[in-house]
């Protein structure tokens, strides 16, 4: 089953008179349960592509279909709705809310989705367990290491049972060991829950985990092949 489809997607940034063609006619399909790496040199359009799939941005031309919704014509609120229910994000810079504890950060999307207190509690504990953060549940982000923060971020992204998790260089700010740990956790959750993962990365150690590798250059897909990982 497909969870996202991009058809002839182009994204042009305009700053003053300068136009940057960040994406140039991308067409591809993402299927449920994929564990896909988006690779390519800096500036090749990885982040831009994730933002389009994540309904954070709209293409200049072409179509982006996410979970059956054509997103190009959705308004601000409708896109927020779609993100809330369908998409989880993991960012390079461990994007947790600094005033909330690990527990509360994971709970946040559940609150936004109107889940009951009992449901929230069960889900948060289950996820903190899955990322090995139960004993840090009531720590605030500044009391956690980078690896720990990123594990909480993964838990938060998964909380509302999204169809797709989009991770932009999730290991770029982590040392090898922590990066490996986060990748293992994502892979385990992908296997166990069937959630689709797409992650942008430069890191060869990360790429080796992927089951599909899409290579970008100058905004176009130059290669799309199965990964080494089983």
């Amino acid at each position: 089953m497909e969870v996202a489809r991009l058809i002839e997607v182009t994204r042009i940034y305009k700053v003053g008179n300068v136009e940057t063609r960040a994406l140039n006619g991308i067409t591809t399909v993402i299927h449920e349960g994929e564990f896909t790496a988006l690779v390519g040199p800096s500036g090749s359009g990885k982040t831009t592509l994730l933002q389009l799939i994540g309904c954070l941005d709209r293409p200049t031309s072409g179509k982006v279909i996410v979970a059956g919704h054509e997103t190009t014509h959705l308004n601000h609120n409708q896109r927020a709705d779609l993100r809330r229910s369908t998409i989880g994000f993991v960012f390079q810079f461990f994007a947790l809310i600094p005033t909330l504890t690990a527990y509360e950060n994971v709970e946040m999307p559940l609150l936004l989705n109107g889940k009951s207190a009992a449901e929230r509690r069960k889900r948060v504990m289950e996820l903190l367990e899955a990322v090995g953060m139960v004993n840090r549940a009531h720590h605030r982000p500044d009391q956690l290491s980078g690896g720990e923060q990123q594990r909480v971020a993964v838990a938060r992204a998964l909380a509302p049972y999204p169809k797709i998790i989009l991770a932009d260089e999730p290991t770029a700010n982590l040392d090898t060991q922590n990066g490996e740990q986060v990748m293992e956790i994502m892979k385990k959750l992908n296997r166990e829950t069937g959630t689709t993962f797409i992650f942008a990365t430069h890191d060869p150690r990360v790429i080796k985990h992927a089951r599909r590798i899409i290579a970008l250059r100058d905004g176009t897909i130059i290669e799309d092949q199965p990964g080494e990982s089983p």
Partner: protein
Amino acid sequence: MIHYVKLAYRNLGRHRRRSILSGLALALGTALLLFIAAFFEGEMRSAMETTIRLNTGHLQLQDADYDPDKLSVAWEYLIEKPEQVAAQIQTLDAVAVAAPRLIANGIVSAGDEAVGVQIIGIAPESKANDPYRDGLVEGQFLTAEDRDGILIGYPLANSLGLKPGDRLSLLVNTANGSVDEQVFTVRGIFSTGTTAYDKGVVFLSLAKAQVFSGAGDRASLIFILLNDREQAEAVAAAIRTPAYQVKTWRQMNELLVLVNDFSNAYLAVINLIVLGVTATVIVNTLLMSVFERTREIGILAAIGMKRRQIIALFLTEAALLALGGVAFGGALGWALSAYFGEVGFYFGDLGMSAQMLMQDRIYTVLTLEAAINLILTAFVITLLAALYPARMAARMEPVEALRGK
């Protein structure tokens, strides 16, 4: 339901000093406004009460032709058989006291000095004269039979160097248009606490004043105090006849009523200025908070928070700040007003005219209505001002917000 309050509270706590300082700005603004309002209220009440008690009364009954600016004691301007008229008015339930007064222009001289005064003939035993009787600082009050005594104010006694028992010379404009002069003995010296009034009047017994000025058994007016001043119009209508004009305290104190209205408008302007300044401080705090949290707002938007929820989050923050501010400011303003309501401010003689008499000491009066109005206004204005940073936060595109590291 998102835990706006929890989030907002923690965000304020993140920059505790900054939050406290901007809350404090609102608190001081609110306290200042309450205090100013209490001061104006005290001032206006004092001016109105003092002027009524000392000068105009709630009602004055005068001859239809009487002109208070001339103070003529020519017979055609005066009331005949004033005691009888006063006694009749006194029988009305709404009337607390009614007393005849004869008012003439005069000049007091002692030694080389001479001062222009109003000579007021009073029925000494009447309660209408309590403010002078109670304000006696030296000597004795007048009696109805006193044919030689004069009562003078403390400022006048001071400037002329007079003590009870001393003699002074008094000149009067008489009924037939000439002048007469006699020597009187200072019987007593009074102070009503209103220098502007005390320095310009002297009292004689009504009988003596009538003889001295040639007014016969007539009086200039009947001075009337009511139990409730709001009944002034009703009582005036009841006692008015073609021969008499009846003036109410509102008519006689037009200037004061005007000043009151004017000062209310003036207060509204001050309120807006002060609240404008405090709102600016709060907006500034929230704007800083919005810019610092650009990324955080982006994260919240990315995980599906809608614009109106982001607005609600920032407004909640503003509401918490405003609540703390106005609560503390309200308490402070109330405490200040209560303190100066007891102790008062000493202003001395403000040199007001007899149309607007003011006690030398002003006591603040904070009404519940003014307090509630101001506190609510401060709260609402703060929230309205906070809409600007809140909407600014909500308008941020999540992409831009996330990139803005």
